[in-house]
């Protein structure tokens, strides 16, 4: 690899990140094949989005288009969305329902599992034309993904080398997923956000427990979360995933001390109050006092619980300096009207217009613009030391370092 991109990682290891990895088109291309087509499990959809056999939707592994279907066998299947004949997109619509998958170009027909069923005029007409006898349907199906579920979350990979999904996620993350996904998911709505920055800058941001209360005034000003609240960060057994959490009802220091620690930090806005702060108060539903939990699975999935606002986020690379961030806002079938109303009100906190997430849509782009001409220099990840293991505090960049810990071997850096 290094002979291809010539990148030499600094001796400081995960405590330094060369800015070039956020800008270099060659490195980006390598990531698409080594990471997104490599031995990683990537979120595809919620199982409930495909209730019936024949339901399908289109998504991506990195930049590779993928079809996800509910087969006649009742199982979820996924294949590359590229016809085996001449490479046309087999599914043109983002979601739909069909008994089979027929390519519009020459009407080759695949079943819902991606097997090639028929080729139009395979035998030619009146003994002329058609496919040669050597042509075998079985050899020309759609390229299939390995698919597995973790609860209602469906993941896929193109790599035979990826470990079983359960091992990939691990127990630590698994239990933190389960505590949030405690009911039958009901989608409240979706959105998509175009970030003009490298996908890793967003993933660093999500895993960055240090920034939240410094960049997002709401957390600090309204004591929704502070670094002085009880909380910490868990790193998965395989070192690749993270979950940060806050129990803001429990303070590690008293309120005055907390204010004092934030004194002079702009995110604490002394005189900023709301006319209707009611929507900020949380209704206990998880039974563990955890008010905020941000969980990420390498390389493209985020599960968010901020108070009662629950969302899945899917990170899709679109180029060295462009990323699509898809949001799926969730409630549960079990929710009563009041809970649904609360989730909708708290949705004001997150997403592209979110009181505590708006800034995350821009900060990656600020970095992307700032590093022009500094591709040879490095960012500094020393908060909390140089480690990348679980910590019972969030004044650390441990989970950001753990991202690079997972990234570097895959890339050969």
């Amino acid at each position, binding site marked *: 690899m290094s002979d291809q991109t010539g990148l030499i990682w600094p001796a400081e290891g995960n405590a330094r990140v060369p800015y070039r990895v956020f800008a270099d088109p060659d490195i980006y291309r390598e990531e698409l094949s080594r990471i997104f087509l490599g031995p990683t499990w990537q979120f595809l959809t919620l199982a409930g989005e495909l209730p019936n056999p024949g339901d399908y939707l289109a998504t991506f592994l990195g930049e590779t288009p993928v079809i996800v279907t509910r087969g006649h066998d009742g199982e979820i299947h996924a294949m590359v969305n590229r016809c085996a004949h001449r490479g046309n997109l087999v599914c043109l619509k983002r979601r739909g329902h069909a008994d089979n998958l027929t390519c519009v170009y020459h009407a080759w027909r695949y079943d819902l599992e991606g097997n090639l069923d028929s080729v139009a005029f395979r035998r030619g007409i009146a003994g002329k034309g058609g496919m040669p006898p050597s042509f075998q349907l079985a050899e020309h199906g759609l390229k299939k993904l390995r698919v597995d579920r973790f609860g209602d979350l469906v993941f896929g990979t193109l790599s035979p080398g990826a470990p079983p999904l359960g091992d990939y996620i691990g127990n630590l993350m698994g239990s933190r997923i389960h505590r949030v996904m405690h009911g039958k998911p009901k989608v409240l709505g979706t*959105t998509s956000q175009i970030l003009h920055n490298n996908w890793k800058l967003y993933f660093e941001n999500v895993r960055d427990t240090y920034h939240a209360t410094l960049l997002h005034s709401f957390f600090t000003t309204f004591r929704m979360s502070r670094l002085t609240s009880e909380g910490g960060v868990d790193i998965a057994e395989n070192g690749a995933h993270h979950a940060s959490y806050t129990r803001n009802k429990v303070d590690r220091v008293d309120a005055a001390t907390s204010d004092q620690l934030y004194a002079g930090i702009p995110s604490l806005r002394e005189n900023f109050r709301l006319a209707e702060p009611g929507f900020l108060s949380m209704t206990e539903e998880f039974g563990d006092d955890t008010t905020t939990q941000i969980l990420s699975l390498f390389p493209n999935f985020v599960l968010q619980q901020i108070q009662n606002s629950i969302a899945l986020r899917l990170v899709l690379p679109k180029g060295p300096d462009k990323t699509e961030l898809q949001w799926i806002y969730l409630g549960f079938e079990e929710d009563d009207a009041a809970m649904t109303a609360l989730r909708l009100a708290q949705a004001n906190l997150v997403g592209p217009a979110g009181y505590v997430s708006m800034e995350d849509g821009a900060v990656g782009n600020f970095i992307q613009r700032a590093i022009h001409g500094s591709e040879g220099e490095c960012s500094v990840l020393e908060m909390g030391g140089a480690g990348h293991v679980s910590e019972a505090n969030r004044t650390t960049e441990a989970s950001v370092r753990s991202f690079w810990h997972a990234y570097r071997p895959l890339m050969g850096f």
Partner: protein
Amino acid sequence: MARRLELEQLYADYVHCLDGDELERWPDFFAEDCFYRVTSAENYEAGLPLGLIYATSRNMLKDRVSALREANIYEPQRYRHLVSSIKIVGDAGEGLDLVANFLVVRTMQDGDMTIFAAGRYIDRVVCDAGNWKFTAKSVVLDSRQIDTLLAIPI
């Protein structure tokens, strides 16, 4: 006919308020008891209730403005709204139902211009002491994508 011109003025005033960065005046275009949301046509047509901005009272609109002024951080930018094809689609007892097409061009401080939003306003207005106020306003964006972030309301 006089009413039509009044309603056209309502939309003209509304967009000049936003484009002129007079956000503090923005909540006054709404009744105290009102509904405002920004959503995508995809959500709207699927009957999904989510709003990217979601307010059930004029006070929540005021909080949105004070957050933009006091709390949230975003790069200097301005909108330019073009509105056309305002149409009265209903005249129930509780007010007039209106639709209109809009386009928003966003300009960043360095001068970069982009089509930030295009879509429909789906609104209800009432006349309160000679002034038209929105009791409900759904900003339905044609696109499911938001470029970078959505700070200033539409």
